[in-house]
């Protein structure tokens, strides 16, 4: 069953196109990795799906949720951003912020919502969750804040989670833990996931589908294994060929991406 | 260019800029618009406006031309106010930059000093200074500036404090730039916007302080000012209210146009910053 259908989506900020002619399907319960670099339009796509584009932005094409009608952000779709500081209110305790989501969107009592918030925080791996509820965002590290933001995003039991580079402000160790956490949560709750990343390995670890964006256009999309085994587009091939990990064969120089996505190793 | 257009796009900006441009033009062209000494007796005393077209706004108690005084008064008001604002911003920005950038006891000392100045009303401070030094245009400018430098100083300091921790400041230290050069060449130009947005408030306040000083007789006696015109008119307020009303309207329009220009600039700056 199609959960999300994006057709011919174009977005322009003040006459500058950020996204052009993007069409995608995402089935319920599947995980889509939106892969791209700065200027690829990947965050614009995530914001458009959440209905969070700034007023005055020109939008073409359509975004539809066939089974949902008009989803409510916070209730049906939860969102986490790259910078957790931006989505948490510094003057409220984290307990208030997480519980409020369930009170507003699910009509829970504050007491029930608080108990639920403590359980969620505990699941996020925040130590001593009940005491943590009374603390403020600045008392936590960046990685912890991102988990708290995730708890708030999931507090109303949404069907879909949109995560815009949820790990790129974190170091590799914390990022690794966060990816495992996301993976577990998506499984337990049967969430439909759309996450934005610039890291092709992360896309392969967490995604089932991948959409590769470059310069505001969709280069290719499909099941992540199929795309990575036999990439149709030169850009995807270039990303794969120049990837740096612990198994990359090292010469005197690393492979670079040149014009027209041609990958070559420069002379030393 | 596009920034000027942005200011003009705001309603306040358009009205303010046009009015202010008009006032400045009148002030600059005063010697040609109203040749001769505005303090000289030009005709019969207490002519009403429009009574004699040689004196369209009438004459005062001594028979001096009101229009001529109004035009020359604009010159004095704007000159004193703008000079005072420039001086206040200059002092304030320098103090704020030094305090914010050096921090420590220098910061403490300068900010306590600013607080001490702020506890005394600006007008009294100016009055006190002038009663000591005598009513010359330069001391009036200095007096107004001394009563108005604190807010630009605070705002600049706050901006400097937030910029001081940026990487580009660390980079300047790494290449070995001296602290004063870092403060004034690297940091300050990026911290000017809020303080400069204050210019309008300072100018408007300065216009009023100058007028009030003149009204109380502390103005430069060799220049016509709107404040002294109002004071002059006060003695014949019942018989010839226009003598006070006309310069009063001049004051209101000047302060209003300065304020609106400032609002327009501030709004345009905000939009501009968001874009940049």
């Amino acid at each position, binding site marked *: 069953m199609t959960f999300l259908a994006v057709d011919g989506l174009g977005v322009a900020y003040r006459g500058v196109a950020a996204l052009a002619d993007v069409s995608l399907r995402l089935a319920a319960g599947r995980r889509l990795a939106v892969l791209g670099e700065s200027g690829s339009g990947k965050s614009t796509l995530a914001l458009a799906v959440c209905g969070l584009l700034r007023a005055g932005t020109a939008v073409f094409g359509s975004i539809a949720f066939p089974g949902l009608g008009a989803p409510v952000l916070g209730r049906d779709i939860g969102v986490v951003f790259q910078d957790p500081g931006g989505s948490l209110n510094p003057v409220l305790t984290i307990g208030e912020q997480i519980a409020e989501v369930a009170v507003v969107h699910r009509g829970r009592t504050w007491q029930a919502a608080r108990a639920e918030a403590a359980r969620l925080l505990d699941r996020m791996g925040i130590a001593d969750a009940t005491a943590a509820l009374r603390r403020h965002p600045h008392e936590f590290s960046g990685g912890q804040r991102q988990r708290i933001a995730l708890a708030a995003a999931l507090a109303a039991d949404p069907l879909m989670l949109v995560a815009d580079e949820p790990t790129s402000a974190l170091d590799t160790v914390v990022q690794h833990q966060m990816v495992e956490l996301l993976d577990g949560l998506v499984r337990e709750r049967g969430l439909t996931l759309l996450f934005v990343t610039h890291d092709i390995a992360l896309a392969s670890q967490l995604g089932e589908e991948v959409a590769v964006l470059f310069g505001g256009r969709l280069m290719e999309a499909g099941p992540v294994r199929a795309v990575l085994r036999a990439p149709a587009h030169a850009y995807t091939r270039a990303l794969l060929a120049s990837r740096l*990990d612990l198994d990359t064969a090292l010469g005197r120089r690393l492979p670079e991406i040149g014009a027209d996505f041609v990958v070559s190793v420069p002379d030393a | 260019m596009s920034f000027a257009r942005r200011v003009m796009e705001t309603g306040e900006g358009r009205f303010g800029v046009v009015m202010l441009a008009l006032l400045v033009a009148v002030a600059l062209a005063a010697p040609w618009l109203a040749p001769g000494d505005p303090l000289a007796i030009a005709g019969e005393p207490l002519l009403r406006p429009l009574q004699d077209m040689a004196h369209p706004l009438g004459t005062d108690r001594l028979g001096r031309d009101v229009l001529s005084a109004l035009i020359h008064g604009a010159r004095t008001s704007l000159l004193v106010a703008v000079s005072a604002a420039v001086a206040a911003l200059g002092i304030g920005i320098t103090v704020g930059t030094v305090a914010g950038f050096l921090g420590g006891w220098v910061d403490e000392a300068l900010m306590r000093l600013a607080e001490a100045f702020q506890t005394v009303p600006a007008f009294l401070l100016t009055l006190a200074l002038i009663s000591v030094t005598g009513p010359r245009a330069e001391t009036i400018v200095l007096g107004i500036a001394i009563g108005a430098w604190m807010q630009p100083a605070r705002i600049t300091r706050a901006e400097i404090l937030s910029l001081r921790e940026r990487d580009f400041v660390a*980079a300047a230290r790494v290449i070995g730039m001296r602290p004063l050069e870092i403060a004034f060449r690297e940091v300050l130009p990026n911290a000017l916007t809020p303080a400069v947005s204050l210019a309008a408030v300072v100018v408007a306040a300065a216009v009023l302080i100058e007028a009030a000083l003149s009204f109380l007789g502390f103005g430069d006696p060799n220049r016509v000012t709107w404040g002294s015109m109002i004071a002059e008119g006060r003695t014949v307020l019942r018989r010839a209210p226009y003598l006070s009303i006309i310069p009063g309207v001049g004051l209101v329009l000047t302060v209003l146009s300065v304020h609106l220009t400032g609002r327009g600039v501030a709004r345009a700056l905000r939009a501009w910053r968001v874009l940049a």
Partner: protein
Amino acid sequence: MPEALLEVVGLTKHFARTGRRVAALDGVDLQVAAGRTLALAGASGSGKSTLARCVMRLTEPDGGTIRFEGRDLLALGGGALRPLRPRFQMVFQDPSTAFNPRATIGRVLSDPLRVHGLAPRGEWRARALALLDMVRLPAALIDRRSHELSGGQRQRVAIARALATEPRLVVLDEPVSALDVSVRNAVLNLLMELQERTGVAYLLISHDLAVVRAVAGDVAVMEAGRIVERGAVAEVFARPQAAATRALLAAVPRLVV
């Protein structure tokens, strides 16, 4: 053993955080040899950036010594330190904040020469152009401002600025982590090439062991303000001893196909 270019002994630094004293550096020893690259790896909060800032004298340590070219850096005040500044430089993590937003690239690149009187005014532009060429950027960028450049171009300018004074040591603080993946390798290649050409030594701060492996000869792993493991990169990565090293190795994202 030849004398180290940079030698840090027993460096300590505490920060007061919510009333408590937290050790950011807890007795760190390390050495960087001339012309070599030492990577300082660790998770965020391990103290590696504090160490970098202490070496650059941007942060004052509480104790320990930092010897550079045999001289005790911590004993030098601002004026005495300034003549040494050209010899050790730094590239910052985020090239979008590392430049005065109002400065043109030409000014950015000639500032180090002007500050230290390394070239007469008439030569600044030519020297800036030569630096742009060295980092393979087009000469036309000289009159632009940094925000008009891409992230990769900005980081190349940052490298050019750091190398303008022909330093012996450059501290690289996460030099590619803020860059798009497609330009990272080119920037790393440039750093390696410049090292071969000029013999500059690098102290590379990074949490990404894939980057460390590609660039550095030696690695020191930090955790909670201490160095918990050190050695040749190939050796340490093949047989990690410390838990922190193993965690960092396990955290490098792997392609699952």
